[in-house]
């Protein structure tokens, strides 16, 4: 097929949106990296963000350090537990904007599938809850029950980490597989055809092209629509279909891929609390941290879903090309999940991996 100017514009839109998402992500990270940088040896030069926001961001690192001091304090003064919970919550909110909390994976997943913002919120909270649970289970079993050494525990953490990255990659591969079909069909169909539907079965490609060649301007009649009705799932499910069982199953794999990897920060806090004889306070802090994390991830997920909605509205006016843009966007998002998984797995992306000393 000849790449017309329209298609080129379609690509431009798709990747502008994708780039905007990546850039936004990068900007948030750059900001937070500075927060960490400024932490214990903060100086004016490091914090280029003025005002309240800058101050709050530079606090991230300090929050984390205060957790240990607060747990110590809680040993003699029970009311310090409230301070601990407050700090943990704040830390969770800021920390989630950093790596390893599934923002990228969950957001990309939501964009790749036609997911609702509500679904995004549920996924964010569920995966954060699972992350907290895994951290508590690791420390509970390894340190509390078995009295294992840090070396053993860190080894377990590393193994889980690799499993999580592999799961993300597999999940991404599956998304690419399912979304790639829709995208290819959108590419192969000519714009007017797209406005109606893409061809549904692989074997129907040729038919479609034949039709195209023979009567370029009048085809895709009702017959195709009927066809679409029973095979709708094969090219991007409708929102209503996602409420069904399959949708939640896919959602669960997202939760598993993201949530299985515990935050190394939480593990340190838990072990420290255990050593102080305040394991329960550590557990409470971990869950509150997870709650904070969930709020940030959910906010970013909702942002991603709305950005996609915006792209949909913008491209809706375009004759036929709209479907191509949307399928391309979904395919791109699916590809991003795969890239993240592979990048994490092979160490191209440093994601706060457990550093065992």
């Amino acid at each position: 097929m000849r790449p017309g100017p329209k298609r080129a514009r379609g690509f431009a839109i798709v990747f502008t949106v994708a780039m905007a998402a990546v850039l936004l992500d990068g900007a948030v990270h750059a900001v937070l990296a500075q927060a960490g940088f400024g932490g214990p040896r903060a100086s004016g030069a490091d914090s280029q963000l003025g005002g309240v926001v800058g101050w709050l961001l530079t606090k991230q690192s300090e929050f984390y350090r205060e957790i240990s001091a607060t747990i110590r304090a809680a040993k003699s003064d029970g009311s310090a537990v409230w301070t601990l919970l407050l700090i943990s919550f704040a830390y969770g909110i800021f920390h989630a904007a950093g790596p390893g909390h599934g923002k990228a994976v969950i957001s990309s997943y939501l964009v790749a599938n036609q997911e609702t913002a509500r679904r995004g919120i549920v996924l964010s909270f569920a995966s954060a809850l699972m992350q907290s649970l895994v951290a508590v289970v690791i420390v509970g079993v390894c340190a509390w029950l078995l009295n294992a050494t840090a070396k053993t525990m860190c080894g377990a953490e590393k193994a889980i980490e690799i499993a999580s990255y592999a799961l993300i990659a597999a999940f991404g591969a599956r998304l690419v597989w399912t979304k790639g079909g829709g995208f290819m069909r959108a590419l192969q169909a000519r714009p007017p055809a797209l406005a109606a539907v893409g061809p549904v079965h692989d074997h129907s490609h040729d038919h479609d092209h034949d039709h195209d060649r023979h009567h370029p301007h009048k085809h895709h009649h009702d017959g195709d629509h009927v066809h679409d009705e029973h095979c709708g799932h094969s090219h991007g499910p409708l929102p209503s279909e996602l409420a069904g069982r399959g949708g939640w199953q896919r959602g669960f794999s997202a939760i598993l891929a993201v949530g299985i990897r515990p935050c190394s920060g939480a593990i340190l806090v838990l072990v420290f609390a255990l050593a102080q004889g305040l394991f329960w306070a550590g557990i409470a802090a971990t869950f509150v941290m997870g709650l904070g994390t969930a709020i940030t991830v959910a906010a970013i997920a909702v942002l991603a879903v709305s950005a996609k909605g915006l792209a949909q509205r913008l491209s809706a006016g375009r004759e036929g090309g709209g479907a191509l843009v949307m399928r391309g966007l979904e395919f791109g998002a699916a590809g991003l999940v795969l890239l993240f998984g592979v990048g994490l797995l092979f160490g191209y992306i440093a994601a706060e991996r457990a550093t065992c000393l």
Partner: protein
Amino acid sequence: MAIRRLWGWLWLAFALALGTVPAQAHPHVWITASSELIYAPDGSVTAVRHAWTFDDMYSTYALQGLDSKTKGVFSREELAPLAQTNVESLKEFRFFTFAKADGKKLKFQEPVDYYLEYKDSLLTLYFTLPLQTPVQSKALAVEVFDPEFFIDFTFAEKDPVKLVGAPTGCQFKFQRPSDGSASAQKLGEQNFLDDGNSTFGAMFANKITVDCP
């Protein structure tokens, strides 16, 4: 044409995603360090000797599951297996120590004289990194940092760096990360354009430079 543009965009997006990622981490472990550069009588540098004190939380974490005769007190012998684990694990991270003599990278041997001390609920790891081949250098640079910034290295306020047995006339300069006038942004670009010798985390580096006549 469109396909080429597509790949262009994809590549750019990917590069950006990767390029920005290493900066995300914030430290989970804090180390207060002090380092000594050891010189031989002939004026060549032979080793770097580190003393790294871990923060409260990490010290507790590292001691998890270790037994001691007296609760809360650990002797050097009781900590020996942990010290062994530490230096073995540090190898993977090249001991977070990166040295150059007159612009040429230096290699280290396996660490020697390593042990841990537990004092005021903080663990301190002592170890010496001998150079593969002692070197006489007019301009020596040693950087200590974690490229992934999982560990924050802050050098001690008092005597962060010492030269042991250095020839007279040798002078050292010590630069803390936040002393750098270059912004993170600039460094990021530089590193991106660099031939890969430096890492993004270099902006967190503590840099010791020694100039000898």
